[in-house]
Every structure is written in structure tokens, then in C-alpha cells.
């Protein structure tokens, strides 16, 4: 229990990640599934930035007036690349959803599978 309270950030990130995973598994609407995927991605970014944090640390700028303890710049760069990749995946998924709706008239996964004859 003490360990859980000490790592409260990580517990919150796990709860958000698992809620996103639940949305992705249960909801049948393709757009809702995509929102769940985005929630999972942002939860992972929050985790990565939190591992680079230092208590009473300053942003990693070396202009001379910030203190001796800096937050680590490497997780920030990784998360920036990650946000770009998340935007790319989301935009391509949205284009595919629009195309699926144009071809079949619905974006509910169970209706699409029934229509396919399964």
C-alpha cells in the first residue's frame, strides 16, 4: 500500500491506459475504438515524461539562470516523436473510416462482420 502511494503517478497512468484498452475492446463503433487507442497512446507518453522528471528540477534549458538540477531531455524528445507518430496514425485511421462508411454505409464492427457473412 505504501508502495502504491509512493508511485501514485504510475498508478494513475495505469488506470488511464486500462480504461483506453477497455474502450478499444468493448465498443463496436470504429471511431470510438480510435479514441480509445489515442487515450492509450497519451497515457504511455505521460509515463515516459514522468520517468524523466526530477523533484525541484528545471526545464532542460542551459541559458544560465536555471538551477543545477535539470529534468532529463531524452524522454521529452522521445515523446515529441511519439506525438507526431500518433497524429499520423490517427489521420490515416480517420481516412480509412470515412472510406469504410462510403463503401458500406455503417461503421459498427458487428454490422460489418454480419454483412460479410460470418
Amino acid at each position, binding site marked *: 500500500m505504501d508502495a502504491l502511494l509512493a508511485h501514485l503517478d504510475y498508478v494513475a497512468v495505469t488506470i488511464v491506459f486500462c480504461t483506453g484498452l477497455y474502450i478499444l475492446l468493448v465498443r463496436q463503433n470504429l471511431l470510438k475504438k480510435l479514441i480509445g487507442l489515442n487515450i492509450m497512446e497519451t497515457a504511455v507518453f505521460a509515463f515516459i515524461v514522468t520517468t524523466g522528471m526530477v523533484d525541484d528540477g528545471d*526545464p532542460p534549458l542551459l541559458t544560465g539562470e536555471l538551477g543545477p538540477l535539470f529534468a532529463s531531455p531524452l524522454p521529452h524528445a522521445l515523446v515529441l516523436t511519439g506525438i507526431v507518430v500518433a497524429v499520423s496514425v490517427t489521420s490515416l485511421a480517420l481516412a480509412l473510416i470515412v472510406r469504410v462508411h462510403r463503401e458500406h454505409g455503417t461503421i459498427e464492427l458487428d454490422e460489418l462482420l454480419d454483412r460479410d457473412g460470418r
Partner: protein
Amino acid sequence: MRPAIAALVVGLVALVLLAGLIALPEPGAPDSPAQRHVSAEYIDGGSQAGGAANLVTAVLLNYRGLDTFGEVLVIFSALVAVLVVLASAPQTGSAQPAQRLAPSPVVAFIVRLMAPFMAAFAAFVMISGAHLPGGGFQGGVVLGAMTILLAVAMGRDRVARMLRGGARFWVRAAAPLVFALVALIGWASTGWWFGLPGPGPFRDALVLALDIAIGVGGAAVLAGIFLALSRE
């Protein structure tokens, strides 16, 4: 998947994740392994070896330039893929045409008033990425968001006509092309791909060119994706 089974799976995943995350050092501890090895080297190397006082820009463009090149290629291929997927003839089975509601005149006026200031802010963030928080992609997304706001206020077709033909093609491809050019220059001057030369005005100019190219290219790609999705 039935909600009960999904809840069970999600509960198992949560237990496994928590068991792993509790074993990590506490967030914020200054002596955790994430702070010590590579990050300590980057912070000690400082702006001399890194190339910028903003360490995140130094990591993105100098220490990990190859990763940033990959990211620029990913967002460019996303634009190409979206244009391919949405290129076929529309309106084959849609239920009803989307109703166009004009935005209220207050919104339209405010957006047109603020657009030059947004563009100036985006340019400032792009150019001052070396010594203030900011950099290439940050300015690029502000510029892309400004384009989307203008399209909502002024009508999508007017914004799509602003940049046409050949100029549109080159602006969208600006980021990968300039990156490849800088890689060649780096190979010619230091012997390593993406290697930036020593401290001096030449390196500052290269970092500035990379920032502007990533910003403008990223904004053009995001605006292109938005215009493709809002066509009908």
C-alpha cells in the same frame, strides 16, 4: 468482445503493469537510472557539443538526428496515404449531404483578426527553438492549427486555393528534402551522416534551416490532411 471478458482481460493487464511499475524507482528521484547515464552526458555536454541551449532541440536535431528524420518521413507518408485513400470519387452511398452552417460573424471576425498574430507567434517559436522552449515541430503545429481555424472561418475552398500547383507540392515535401540535404552536407563536412560541424555560425545556420523546414513542412502536411478530410 463481451464486457465481462474484456473487464477480466483489462484487470489482468492492470495487475501485470502495476506489479512492474511498483518495482521502478520513485518518480522524481534524482538518482534513478533514467537520470544518470546518457542524460547526464547530454546535460554536461551542454550547448557546446549539443548545438543549442535548448537541450531538447539539441537532442532532436544533433544527438538523435536520425530519429527526427524518421519522424519527418512518417508524417509525410501519412499525408500520401490519406490522399490515396480519399482520392476515389465521393458520394457513392452517403445518406444525406452535410449541412453547411456558416460560423457566426463574431467568430469569423476574431479569427481573421488573430490570424496574423498566430502566424507571427508560430514563426517566433520556430526560429527561437535554439535557446527558448520551442523548435521546429512546435511552430509547425501552431501554423497548422491556424490554417484549420482559417478554413472554418473563411470557407474551406478559399484556403485550399491559397497555395496551388507546384508550390504546394514543394512545400509539403520541404521537410524530408531539407533534412536529406543537411545529411549530405554533414557527410561532406564531418564524415558522418547527419553529423553537424563544430560550434560556429555554420552550425547555427544549419540548425535554423532544419527548424524552419520541419515547421513549414509539418504545417503543410497537417493542412493537407485536413483539406483532404473536409473535401465533401
